[in-house]
Structure formats: structure tokens, C-alpha cells
């Protein structure tokens, strides 16, 4: 409990510092809010174009897909607020030798490496995600009320899935001179996450629920909220995210052994 409080206080300090720095650059703050709003609109336009030409894809109707979009946007927005900037700058941490400072601090280095920069400009988009869930929910089979607790739980699962996936890509910066290439590769694969897994053929469906578990960011959480996820989905979720946790910790430790402390 004492350790938890200690880390919570560190988190609070980082949160406060980031809040201040975000509001120093107000124009950028509002521009970033606008940029993500456009991103959501474009995602919605993509599905709107597809569904203006067809009624259902592999059993996924328009309201169900938009409900998925709401869950996905909420989970993605949480990731953007708390982790996106940190992971984007993670390669710098290693390539410029800034990790030295974190390793000498009296706190877990992996925690400090993953919780550095926040992005409060996305908070309004979190509400937009909830609005999409609410707006398309009834037609998709979402009853609201206590089911909202299920939404909050599953978008947290989506957040965890994305943190593990992003970390597993970015940790290769220990071995690469330009870690940004891996970050870009991540965002290419990330396109697998912004469509419901049901529209993919069987092979891809298993791929994104096992080796590349992007389905756990939005697709499986959306189905779980609607009560459509299967036992197999839950087993794959536990197995896959568990494996990724072990893999990330292993790669981090091996990476630290390789780290040469370039700046010192």
C-alpha cells in the first residue's frame, strides 16, 4: 500500500507538470484537440462510405460498427492522454542516453520510462467516444445504465492491450539506431485495430487475437460490452496479453543489458 501511494504521488507530480506545460502552449493544445476530432470524423467517414454501399459486412451492421468505433475511440483517447507522447519519444530516451537519469532515480525505471508525458488535449474526445457509444448503442444492442461500468472496464482493458503492444514495438529501440522506424511500423499495424475483427477472414481474426493482439484494443471490448464475446475470446485475451507482459519485461531487461549510456 505504501509503495502504491509512493508511485501514485510520483504520478501526481508528473500529471501536474504536464498539465502546466500543456496549457502554456494553448494554440497547440486546441489544434491537437481539433486534429483528433478530424481523425475521428475520418474514421467515421470511412465506415460511412463503406456502409453507403453495403448493409452488413460479415454480420457487422452499421450501428454495431459505429458502436465499436465509440469503444475504440474511447480506449485510444485514454492511450493518447497518458502514453502516446511518451512512447513516441521513447527511442530518444535510449538513443540520446536520457535513460541514464531515470535509472539513477529511486523508482522503478520502467514506470518512469512509460509515464513521462501526458496529452490533455484529447480529454474532450473521450466524451465524444462516449457520445458515439450512447448514440449508436441502442441499435447495436447496448442498454446503457449499469452496462456503462462494463464500458469503463473494457476500455481500460483496451488501454492495457495498447500499452503492451506499443511497448513491445518501441523496446526494440535498444537494438536499432533509429527507433522511429519501428514506431511507424506500429502505426501501420495499428490499422488492424480500427476495424472490428469480425470483418476480417478467419486467419486474420486469430492473428489479431494472438500474435498481434490489436483486436483487444477496441474490437473484443466492444463485443464483450454487447455480450457477444466468446469464451475463446476471453482465453485468448488472457493468454495473449499475459505473454506480451512477460515478453515486454524480458526485452526490457535484455535491452538494459545492451544499453550503453551514450550521453554520459
Amino acid at each position, binding site marked *: 500500500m505504501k509503495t502504491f501511494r509512493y508511485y501514485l504521488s510520483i504520478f501526481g507530480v508528473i500529471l501536474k507538470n504536464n498539465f502546466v506545460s500543456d496549457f502554456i502552449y494553448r494554440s497547440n493544445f486546441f489544434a491537437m484537440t481539433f486534429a483528433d476530432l478530424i481523425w475521428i470524423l*475520418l474514421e467515421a467517414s470511412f465506415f460511412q462510405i463503406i456502409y453507403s454501399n453495403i448493409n452488413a459486412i460479415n454480420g457487422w451492421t452499421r450501428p454495431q460498427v459505429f458502436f465499436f468505433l465509440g469503444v475504440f475511440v474511447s480506449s485510444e483517447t485514454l492511450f493518447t492522454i497518458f502514453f502516446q507522447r511518451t512512447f513516441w519519444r521513447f527511442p530518444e530516451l535510449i538513443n540520446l542516453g536520457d535513460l541514464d537519469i531515470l535509472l539513477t532515480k529511486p523508482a522503478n525505471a520502467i514506470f518512469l520510462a512509460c509515464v513521462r508525458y501526458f496529452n490533455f488535449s484529447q480529454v474532450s474526445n473521450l466524451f465524444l467516444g462516449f457520445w458515439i457509444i450512447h448514440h449508436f448503442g441502442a441499435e447495436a444492442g447496448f442498454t446503457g445504465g449499469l452496462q456503462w461500468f462494463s464500458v469503463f472496464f473494457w476500455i481500460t482493458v483496451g488501454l492495457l492491450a495498447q500499452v503492451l503492444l506499443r511497448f513491445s514495438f518501441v523496446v526494440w529501440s535498444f537494438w*536499432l539506431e533509429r527507433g522511429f522506424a519501428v514506431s511507424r511500423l506500429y502505426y501501420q499495424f495499428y490499422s488492424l485495430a480500427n476495424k472490428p475483427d469480425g470483418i476480417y477472414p478467419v486467419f486474420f481474426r486469430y492473428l489479431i487475437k494472438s500474435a498481434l493482439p490489436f483486436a483487444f484494443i477496441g474490437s473484443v471490448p466492444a463485443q464483450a460490452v454487447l455480450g457477444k464475446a466468446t469464451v475463446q475470446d476471453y482465453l485468448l485475451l488472457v493468454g495473449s496479453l499475459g505473454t506480451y507482459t512477460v515478453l515486454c519485461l524480458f526485452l526490457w531487461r535484455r535491452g538494459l543489458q545492451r544499453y550503453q549510456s551514450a550521453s554520459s
Partner: protein
Amino acid sequence: MNDSEISSRSWWALEWRLAAIQNGMRDAIAYRLEFLLEIVGSAAVPVILQLVLWYSIFKTSGATQFAGMTYQELISYTWMTLLFSQIRGGDLDFSLIEMIRTGTLNNYLLRPVGVIQFIYMRGLGERILIVTLCLGLGILSTAFSSVSPFQLILGMLLALVGNVIAFMIGAALSSVAFYWENAFAALMVKNMIVSLLSGELLPLTLIPHQYSWIWKATPFYLFVFGPTQVALGKWSASEWAVQMGIGLAWIIGLSLVIKLLWGISMKRYQGLGG
């Protein structure tokens, strides 16, 4: 100015551009693994996703046509976008805003070359490697498809015009960095809109007819959709010529816009840091 001075200046104008291109090429292949990862990531993954989407619509949903297009037509379109989406790419505008933000623009202002052109030429080095690779693969693929090498080359030329326009729009937008502390968001918005309206994600003919004016009003369709239509023989040679003309008109218009925006903005630039 005598003849030898003119000749010397012309030679210098060519020399620095070639040097910048060469420099960009060397920089791109200095980190080979990363270069390869970037090509694979930016080319293969989006294409696979599109192919999977079409497969789902046609094979698992049982559709025979989608917005008037057959499965085969959509597959051909997707493969062709693989080539042209690589040509339009590049994050050179992000380099420009970073230079303005951090003050490293100072170093470039001291050089006897135009900063925007210099950045473009460096990026062109990397792009030439990719274009050569794409053209090679494309011409190879003509042996197994109905696409003619001539159509493919016409498409490539239109895509190159699109590449110049893409950079110019980015360069014009990056002038926002002179006013905002970080113009990252502006370029992100532009990139997101381009990804949809260039035809990279979906054929633009899928957009309902009443909204087609949206993509026709921008030059983004010249980046991927236009070249793909030319290569697949959907646009005739005369249509290609018209689109090249439109593309060149955009280039002229954008060069004026860049001159105006950067001219005004540079007066505000303080060159701190760098």
C-alpha cells in the same frame, strides 16, 4: 553579367540540387534495416488491410459488386495504389516545422540555397530510390497483367507531379510554425485528410456522387487515385494530359502561396536557438 558568370551560376544551381539529392539517398540507406522496415510497413500493411476488406465484402458477405466495382477491379486498384502511395509519401513538412520550432532553420538561412527547395531535394533522394523500386516492380507486374508499361509510366509521371504538390502543400502549411509554438497538429490534420481523399484507403468512386465535389476540389486525388486510374487504363491519354495540366496549375499556384506565406512569416522569425 557575362556568359561565364551565367554559366557558373547555372552550374551551381544544378550542382547543389544534385548534391542534396545524393545526400538524401545516402542518408536513406545509411540505416538499411530501418529503411526496409519503413518500406514494408508503409507499403505492405495498408495493402494487405485493403485486400482483406475486399475479401470480407465479396467472399464472406456474398456481394458481387461494390459501388459498381467488381472484386477483380478492386483488387487491381489496391495493388496499383501500392506503387503510387509510396511516391506521394514523405515527412519533409514535419522536418520544416521542427527546424522553425527549434531554430535550426538559422543554419539553412545562411546557406546560398533556397531552404524549402533544399529540404525537398534531400527528400527527393530517398523518394527516387523508392520510385525506382516501384517502377521496377510495376513494369515486372505488367508481364502478368493487362496493364501496359506505357500506361504505368504515364501514371508514374502524374504521381511525381502529385509528390511535388504534396510537398508544396506541406511547405505552405508549415509556415504556421512561425506563429504557433508547434504546428504538428496542422500537418497531422492535413495527412489524415490526404489519406482519405488521395484514394489511398478507398477508390474515390466509392464516395457517394453528391459528395464527389469534395475530392474533385482538392489536388489530393492526383497523388494516388489519378495515377492509378491512368495505369489501369480508366483514364485516356487526353484525360492524363488534362490532369497533368491541372497538376502544373496547382504547382504554380502553390509556389506563389509559399512565396507569400514564407515571405510574411520570415519577418516574424527570431531565430532563437539552433
